[in-house]
Each structure stands twice: as structure tokens, then as C-alpha cells.
């Protein structure tokens, strides 16, 4: 808790007493707020609203299929996005100005378009242009939308990772007679990809949350199938709470795993590298995981190189 030591002195006896009093009063206020919300929802939280979740059928016919669809879309998207992201990232690092410029425009464009719009576009594209059978439309829309957006995010991560490496790595590669491409492939990329592994896991959390956007294009994800359940049972509040708990459980484990991975990777490297890695936080904002090095990826020189 470095934040505390910056903002406050270690509390003395008087401060400790004040803290305890404030803590108890504040804790009671927080408790009162929670009770007020639960009281407001009391009719929706009765035992019979929870009862469907004690039956095996609910889990077999609603929770499990919905969760499976959500995970399926997320995993396929993350795999495709990693491949496409690698291609785009290499394109941006290319020394051919045409390639790097075209990929830069592509990446910047698709990064600033909302995922939902790309899903809508892919959905209607598969409907009107590809004329896919009806069953495939939603999953095509979800996967293409998620892949396009996240591959651009990953491309930026790869670029930031390569630019974040110490300059000496590239110079040493060139000095021992490797070409630019060889240096990139055998020296820079392996380090950059290892450094961005935690961010990749955090990105999986974003993708998993964004599968819920498929609701608008009728993708039968966890939220939709629990909503279908509650249409019959009249327990929408409980259904949403269960859905939220499932998401929180999965995402919290993924975030913890990413943090563990980050620590492990940081510890594995020596000296300056470990510092560089810890300065690149993956944790605070999984929506935009690379603000930690914003000054690196916005470097105008790198667009033209």
C-alpha cells in the first residue's frame, strides 16, 4: 500500500482513535446503503425467486448452454485476434512506409469504432452479402466484431512492447550482423510477447465482457439465456445477480492470473528489465490496457520509420 505512505503519516494514538470512529460511522453508512438497496429489491429476492437455481434443469438448460456460448465466442475471438494482432503489429513495425502507414490507419480506425457497431456491421454483412444461414449470423457477428477490435488493441500492445525494450537489444542484434527482420524476429519479438502476456490475459477479460454485446444481434449468450429463464419464472433480478456472479468469478480469476503472471515475469528478468516491466501496469484498466506507455506508442517518429 504505497498510496497510504504517500498520502498519510503512520497514524499516532489520536489519529488511530479518530480513524476507528470514522470507520465505524462510515461503515454503518455503507451498511445502511446496502440494506436500503436490498430492501428496495426485497420482493424480488424472496426464496421462491432463488428456487429455480437449486434445480438441476435450470443449470443444464439455461446456465450451462449460455455460459458455453459466451466462452466459445470469447475463446475463438481471442485466438483469432492474437493471430491477426500479430500480423497487424508486425505491419506497424515494418520498415516499408506503405505497409506501416496502411496498418496504422487500419488499426487507428478500428480502435476508435465501438465494438457493438462492428458486430452490427459483421452481422448484417453476413446476412446481406455472404447470405449465411440464419443460425450462423449471430456468432459470425460476435466473433468478427470482437476479433477486429481486439486484434487492433493487441497490435498496439505488440508495438508498445517492442518499443518498450531497451535500445541496446536492437543495437546488439544489428551489431552481431543480423538483419533488421532477423533482429525483430529472434530478439525483439520474443521479449515483447513475453512482456505482453499479462496484458493478453487481461484482454481476455475485456473480450469475455464484450460477448454480452452480442445480445443486440440475438446471440444466445449467458445473459440472454438467463433472461429467457426469468421470462418464465419471473425472477429477473436473481437471474441477473447469478449472471453477474458467474462473470465476476471468471474475470476475477483471470485478472488474478494476469497479475501473478506479471509478477513472475518481472521476477524472472534481471536488473533494468524488471523495472521496465513493473512500470508497465496491466492491472488498472482492462478496457485500454496500454496507457502505461502512452508516450511510447504515440511517438510520431515511429509512424514513419
Amino acid at each position, binding site marked *: 500500500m504505497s498510496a497510504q505512505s504517500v498520502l498519510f503519516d503512520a497514524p499516532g494514538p489520536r489519529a488511530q482513535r479518530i480513524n476507528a470512529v470514522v470507520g465505524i460511522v462510515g461503515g454503518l453508512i455503507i451498511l445502511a446503503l446496502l440494506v436500503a438497496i436490498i430492501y428496495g429489491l426485497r420482493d424480488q429476492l424472496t426464496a421462491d425467486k432463488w428456487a429455480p437455481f437449486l434445480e438441476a434443469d435450470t443449470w443444464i438448460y439455461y446456465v450451462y448452454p449460455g455460459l458455453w456460448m459466451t466462452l466459445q465466442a470469447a475463446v475463438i475471438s481471442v485466438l483469432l485476434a492474437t493471430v491477426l494482432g500479430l500480423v497487424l503489429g508486425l505491419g506497424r513495425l515494418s520498415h516499408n512506409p506503405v505497409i506501416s502507414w496502411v496498418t496504422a490507419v487500419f488499426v487507428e480506425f478500428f480502435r476508435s469504432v*465501438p465494438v457493438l457497431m462492428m458486430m452490427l456491421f459483421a452481422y448484417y454483412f453476413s446476412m446481406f452479402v455472404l447470405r449465411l444461414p440464419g443460425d450462423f449470423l449471430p456468432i459470425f457477428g460476435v466473433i468478427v466484431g470482437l476479433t477486429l477490435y481486439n486484434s487492433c488493441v493487441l497490435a498496439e500492445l505488440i508495438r508498445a512492447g517492442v518499443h518498450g525494450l531497451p535500445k541496446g537489444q536492437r543495437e546488439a542484434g544489428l551489431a552481431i550482423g543480423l538483419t533488421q527482420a532477423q533482429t525483430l524476429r529472434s530478439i525483439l519479438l520474443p521479449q515483447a510477447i513475453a512482456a505482453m502476456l499479462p496484458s493478453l490475459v487481461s484482454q481476455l477479460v475485456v473480450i469475455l465482457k464484450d460477448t454480452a454485446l452480442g445480445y443486440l444481434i440475438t446471440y444466445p449468450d449467458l445473459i440472454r439465456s438467463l433472461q429467457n429463464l426469468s421470462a418464465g419464472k419471473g425472477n429477473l433480478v436473481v437471474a441477473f445477480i447469478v449472471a453477474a456472479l458467474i462473470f465476476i468469478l471468471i474475470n476475477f480469476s483471470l485478472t488474478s492470473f494476469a497479475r501473478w503472471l506479471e509478477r513472475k515475469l518481472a521476477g524472472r528478468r534481471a536488473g533494468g528489465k524488471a523495472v521496465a516491466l513493473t512500470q508497465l501496469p496491466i492491472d488498472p484498466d482492462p478496457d485500454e490496457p496500454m496507457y502505461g506507455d502512452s508516450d511510447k506508442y504515440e511517438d510520431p517518429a515511429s509512424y514513419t520509420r
Partner: protein
Amino acid sequence: MLQIITEYKVLDAFWMTIQLTVLSALGSLLLGTFVAILRVSPVRIFQWAGAAYVNLVRNTPLTLIVFFCFFCLYQLIGWHIAPTTARSNVHTFQWAVVGLSIYHAAFVAEAIRSGVNTVPVGQAEAARAIGLTFSQSLGDVILPQAFRGAIAPLGNTMIALTKNTTVASTIGVAEASSAMKTAVEFSSDVLYSIFFVMATGFVILTLPMGIAFTHFSRKLAVQR
């Protein structure tokens, strides 16, 4: 293109997107600052409450939060912010703003906390060593640096918020993505043009924000 824009009221839709963005930004900044204060306070129970808020909200899909606000709090329980006599799209809009604010407050809180974390402990020690009081060291030394460190992550959160306002279309707010849906359904022959117009609208909204935040985060960066 011009025909698409006039026929499907694209400008009105983007005006709705802008309204959603501005109001939710204000809401999430207020709530997020409050949560951040809880997280960095010296009182254990407040830290715990702040951390619980951030971890619960951040790991829940925005769609689910907006649904919960609209379907559960508004439709089922009948809580409302505007008077009951207001038109139904006013209620929908307000609950969309509430949902967006709740979700992004978690990210705002993390942005502010990471700003506080950029301040080295030595700054506080130096402030104390030259005899500044607690409020002086907080107000004159630490918080100014913390705000500057928070600009870049806050900018990213605000850009993400702008894009995430599209989620409001799932509960029926007539913003950009719902205009796109309507447009495509009625004139599918110009699918590409419609997507291009809508996407460009978002590029126009978010690109200047990105440039401005990057500019200020660099200009105001604390040299260390």
C-alpha cells in the same frame, strides 16, 4: 452519404451519443473520485468498500449493469429519477446514464489511484521535512502531482466511455448504433456507406479527445 445522414437522422443520433457521453462522464467522475478517496483513505473499512466496488463492477459486463438498472430498478421496482409523468424515453435515457456512470466510475477510481501511485514517497517525506503541515503537503505537493499522473488513464477511460455509450441502444436509447441498426434494416443495399458514416462519426468524436489527452498528459507530466 448525405442522404443517409438526413434520412436516418444521424446527427440527432450522434447528439444523443454526445449527451450520454457528457452526462455519464460527469457522473462517473463524481462517483469514481469518491470511490478513489475511499480506496486511498487511511480507514480500513473504506479501503475495503472501495476495493469491493471496483472489483465487482469492473468484472461485470456493462450490458448487464445497464440491463439491471433499466429492467430491474426501473421497470420491475419502479424507481425513477424523472417525475413519473415524464415520457418513457426520458426515463430510459436517465437509467442509461446511471448504468454507464456506475460502470465507468470503477475505471475512473483506478485511474485516479494509479495517479496517486505515481507520486514517489520521497515527495511526501520532503514536504514533511521542510515543515509543511498535513493539509499543505497534500494540497500543494502530492495532489497536484497525482492529478497530472491521472490524466492519461482518465483520458483512456473517457474515450472508452464514448464508445461504450452504444450499449445504451440495447435498452432502446436512440443513439448512434441504434440509428445504424435502423438504417441497415431499411436500406441494406448501402451497408458499407452506413457503416462508414457511423464509424467516421466515432472517429471524429474520439480522435480529438485522444490527441487532447495525450497533449495534456505530456505537457503537464511531472519531470522526474
